[in-house]
């Protein structure tokens, strides 16, 4: 039964939705605005929201003081590398769970997901020591592997739900048509699951990009990504809010732009399986 919604009510709902959206977005908006203020305006009380002298000075200082591009590059390598490696491992894993499940498949899936509930700090010490022993502290490849392992349960789980939607008969048809396992994955399953794989890649990339706990603890100079770049501005010389905001804005800009352009994929990915 359709419900009648009056125009007034619609307008009210729209206003409410905008309000909630604004509240959620406010911290980011505030950070971006602050990055264009002087340090004095940034800490002014009562706070100045829009009417201040807009300046790019902070960005200049940040760029002078640290090499943004190097941090950016590290972020790209760590987030991109861990995503790529994760997806290569997760596709066959999710395939086997979706199409040739064993009696324990459900348990394994749940167990994998349960590792995400473990507080990361619980394994910091052993992993830190392991990195020292192996001589891979502050190493990009080590971070690629660690972040891949951390996000793997989510990638496998997401791909599994996508693959479950694909009719098994199509894969059987491929088998009858002479496709081996490799061809079946490459020519039939993967192309059919492209939307699912794309949103999984996207989500994982964002998770890895924003990951701060491991990147801050396991890097110092060579492998430090943008999260470390932001952290370096909460400096011991006193708080420079405007500069910290400029650094933060620079760090989140790439992922924000990527997220903006791929909203549709992302929403589909996050809500997939919710409506069946």
């Amino acid at each position, binding site marked *: 039964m359709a419900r009648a919604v009056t125009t007034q009510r619609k307008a009210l709902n729209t206003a409410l939705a905008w309000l909630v959206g604004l509240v959620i977005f406010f911290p980011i908006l505030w950070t971006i605005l602050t990055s264009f203020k002087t340090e004095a305006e940034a800490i002014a009380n009562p706070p100045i929201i829009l009417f201040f002298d807009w300046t790019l000075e902070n960005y200049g200082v940040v760029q002078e003081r640290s090499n943004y591009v190097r941090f950016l590059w590290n972020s790209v390598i760590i987030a991109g590398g861990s995503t790529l490696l994760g997806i290569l491992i997760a596709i066959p894993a999710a395939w086997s769970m979706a199409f040739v499940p064993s009696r324990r498949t459900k348990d394994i899936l749940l167990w994998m997901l349960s590792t995400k509930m473990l507080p990361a700090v619980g394994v910091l010490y052993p992993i830190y020591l392991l990195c020292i022993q192996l001589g891979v502290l502050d190493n990009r490849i080590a971070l690629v592997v660690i972040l891949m392992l951390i996000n793997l349960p989510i990638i496998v789980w997401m791909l599994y739900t996508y693959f479950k939607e694909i*009719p098994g*008969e*199509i894969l*059987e*048809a*491929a*088998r*009858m*048509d*002479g*496709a*081996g396992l490799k*061809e079946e994955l490459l*020519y*039939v399953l993967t*192309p*059919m699951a*492209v939307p699912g794989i794309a949103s999984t890649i996207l989500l994982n990339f964002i998770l890895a990009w924003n990951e701060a706990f491991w990147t801050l603890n396991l890097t110092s100079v060579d492998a430090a990504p943008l999260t470390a770049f932001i952290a370096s501005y909460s400096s011991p010389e006193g708080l420079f809010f405007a500069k910290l905001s400029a650094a933060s804005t620079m760090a989140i800009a790439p992922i924000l732009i990527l997220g903006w352009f791929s909203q549709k994929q992302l929403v589909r990915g996050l809500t997939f399986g919710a409506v069946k």
Partner: protein
Amino acid sequence: MGRITLDKVRKAFGEVEVIPPLDLTIEDGEFVVFVGPSGCGKSTLLRLIAGLEDVSGGEIRIDGQDATMVPPAKRGLAMVFQSYALYPHMSVRKNIAFPLRMAGMDAAEQERRVKSAADVLNLTDYLDRRPGQLSGGQRQRVAIGRAIVREPAAFLFDEPLSNLDAALRVGMRLEISELHKRLNTTMIYVTHDQVEAMTMADKIVVLRAGHIEQVGSPLELYRTPRNLFVAGFIGSPKMNLIGGAVASAHDAATIGIRPEHIRVSDEAGDWTGTVGVSEHLGSDTFFHVNCEGIPDPLTVRVGGEVDLHYGDRIHLSPDPEHLHRFDAEGLRLP
């Protein structure tokens, strides 16, 4: 060549044995139909032959070679699925060419074979479309096209027509029979529709609960059903089965008489009854007649239109030549 032999083939899912040890030989070039009610194991049997399910025991031989452990891709069989199972991201051309591509055939030969299959199946105008842009019948043709390009040892059909509407089904039925006559390749066809079985098969295998109830040509099954199950399953409308005193009079536990083998008379006959509901098909009329001493109404088939109405009193006589007699176990008596 496509001679398929099942030797004590058995299938169990966990504790449940869906197919007890079963022997069957399918000769090269034969059109064999597996028919039976749903859940009788006919699809499972087909999937065992295809290699999509592993057998729990026994041996499958294709042209004398043991294929029990051979993966589906290497058995040289082609399958047409009920859901068509086309690759939705590929054009019709690519769908049909897929098995050839997997076999590593060169592009020119692939194109030649796709063209000739498309010609046979009237798909030439649709080669660049995606499956999503085709009707059900066209999709089914693409699925058949994908099967014939490989020139397989045998075709396996898993209820290929059950997703089509009635008119299309009759058309496709003829097309598949036509294809069989032209290619002369072994075909194994699974259906629950006994009309499809009767019209298409060289040999019908009637299955129930994983057991083979009877194997024979359509007319053998029609004329001499081995037991009550086959008698009731083959033929449309169903054979009338009568027990009790009427059967005892013929020295049997149950007698069976097909609707087309009962004579109707105004004056005299073996059984007397009143006409119930009648179904007029134009070419034939089916009367449901309630007879004295027989609990279930009998179905009677009369050619053309006959002037009988609801409540009319008539006399029926079974044609003694076509009377089937069964013992207490349901087996056919000589």
